């Protein structure tokens, strides 16, 4: 599965939108299926370092579009297992170093395919190995998580760890209290959160911090009105959302901003209709796929986050998405109910 961009472009002709501007569900399904058949293109191989996450993005989009079986289940499981290392971590593709981000994608894919048992049968002690790979990256003094052996920490990795461990039912392997304290120390004067203490507020990092606090059951630490005000200020007159003040709008922030607002119960502070129109304008109506903004190349990353954003704001015809996990709610509910 590729993050390969293109081939299509989002519509540019914003002045003459058709009256029936809608989500082209069938086209998007075909687009995601086609990504995997583009192995004769260099772009496919240049994005190999993202492959496992690309697979998670594509699979999530298909689930939300109501086509969960549009990719072959057995082949996906084979591929996921082929990315796994003996230490329990996953690389982006076979032969790539194990990394937190791809390990999380691996777990999310297995969860979406309801494949933990298949996995356990094929990889002895597999879940426990993953749990240990992830928990070993926590610094027990500071609560932070690194993403790889080089030790750089980032609230993305902390969120990823709590995400995957909660899906595996293994949160007890880490010090959740310390992790929560670290997230709290990343809160900025403007109400947002960054990659670490003192780092600029950024909608993507806010998603990871609020997501981590939600999984830990500690949303009480968030000043919801202040954060909600900052997040809702991300909406621009064209309906799109940016990730930081004075930056351009981008479809992926339809996810990072709106999911954060949903988690703190402030989803209605943005103009949903305007946002929906903006996302729909970023589609390629012929070949499918969604771009970051109208006129740009489509890619699977913006395709899933555009669709997930639409799901959050209740766009008709889509499966409900879980704002904490970016997976279908029916699936996270089943797994977390244990």
């Amino acid at each position, binding site marked *: 599965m590729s993050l390969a961009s293109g081939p299509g472009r989002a519509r540019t002709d914003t002045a003459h939108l058709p009256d029936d501007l809608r989500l082209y569900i069938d086209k998007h399904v075909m687009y995601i299926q086609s990504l995997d058949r583009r192995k004769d293109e260099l772009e496919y191989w240049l994005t190999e370092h993202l492959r496992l996450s690309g697979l998670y993005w594509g699979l999530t989009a298909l689930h939300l579009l109501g086509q969960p079986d549009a990719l072959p289940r057995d082949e996906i499981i084979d591929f996921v297992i*082929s990315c796994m290392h003996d230490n329990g971590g996953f690389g982006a593709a076979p032969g790539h170093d194990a990394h937190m981000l791809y390990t999380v994608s691996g777990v999310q894919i297995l969860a979406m395919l309801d494949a933990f048992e298949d996995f356990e049968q094929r990889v002895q002690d597999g879940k426990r190995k993953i749990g240990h790979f992830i928990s070993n990256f926590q610094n027990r003094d500071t609560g932070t998580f690194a993403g790889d052996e080089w030790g750089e920490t980032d609230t993305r990795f902390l969120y990823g760890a709590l995400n995957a461990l909660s899906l595996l039912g293994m949160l007890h392997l880490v010090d959740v209290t310390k992790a929560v304290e670290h997230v709290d120390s990343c809160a900025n*004067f403007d109400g947002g959160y960054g990659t670490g203490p003192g780092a600029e507020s950024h909608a993507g990092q806010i998603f990871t911090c609020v997501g981590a606090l939600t999984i830990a059951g500690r949303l009480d630490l968030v000043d919801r009105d202040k954060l909600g005000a900052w997040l809702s200020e991300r909406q621009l007159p064209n309906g799109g959302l940016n990730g930081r003040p004075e930056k351009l709008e981008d479809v992926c922030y339809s996810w990072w901003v709106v999911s954060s607002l949903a988690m703190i*119960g402030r989803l209605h502070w943005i103009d949903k209709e305007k946002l929906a129109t903006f996302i729909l304008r970023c589609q390629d109506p012929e070949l499918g796929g969604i771009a970051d903004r109208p006129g740009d190349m489509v890619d699977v990353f913006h395709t899933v986050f555009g669709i997930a954003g639409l799901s959050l704001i209740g766009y008709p015809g889509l499966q409900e998405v879980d704002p904490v996990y970016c997976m279908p709610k029916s699936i996270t509910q089943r797994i977390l109910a244990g």
Partner: protein
Amino acid sequence: MGVYSDDPLWADVEPLPQDDGGPNPLAAIAYTDEYSEAMSYLRAVMASNDMSERVLSLTEDIISMNPAHYTVWLYRARVLLTLKKDLKEEIAWLNPTALNYQKNYQIWHHRQTIIDALDSPEGEAEFIAQMFERDAKNYHVWSYRQWLVKRFDIDDESELKAIDELLRADVRNNSAWNHRWFVVFGRHEGDSLDETVLERELKYAQAAIYLAPQNQSPWNYVRGLLRKYNKPLSTIKPFATEFASLDHPDDVHSSHALDVLADIYEGEGTKADAAKALDLLAQKYDPIRANYWTYRKFLLGFPPEPDHPIFHHHNY
């Protein structure tokens, strides 16, 4: 046949083709030749843990084709440190690479590894300034800069001067405002609060607001300052009134000023005025966030209209 297969330097290495995880069409093979060959040699050297000089040119080659490949960077750093190479040379090589691939996360991580090993920030301020000329809001560069400040305990004065230059170029650079907060307060967490610093920072932010009243960064900064020092928001009432006044509802120069005034009126107990300010925001100056402003009014004790969407949400 290939750059590497024809090179005697690589004659002893048996290239490892892509192992795509078994009979699985999801990852069938059709690499372009050049990239594919280089990768097969990388897999081979990694498999044998080859730490020789030639690996540096191999990784350089792959990075030039695909700088986002994180495994290549990690392996290159490992070889550099093992061979005890001249790390200044590595930085000199990295500079143009970083300028060409500004959004690349791996390059910054690599740079941090190398500068940390060099144990000196010499030349880094100049390089960062060059990066900022292309994109003064690059998140990786700002994170790296914070790391440098902490790692080498760089003094406040030179940092504040650099920030000032960036804000002169673009007063709306939120990254620069954030770094200012980090330098003034973030790195001195736990120090006692100095009133002269409050005065200096208030003055600085207010001067910036005069330049661009609708710029949210300095307004956030001012709110943050007053909260930090436990001062009431009414401290800046005369200042805010310069940009918005209920007496002149058609002549508002900053929605942020109106927002501040709403809070000030609420604090003073003149809720009707606060409600007026919030109505202006909802109806005229920031209608896209009408629901937010209505919620603020609701907190004041004004019930929203019965069909208002606020009633559809119960989880306040």
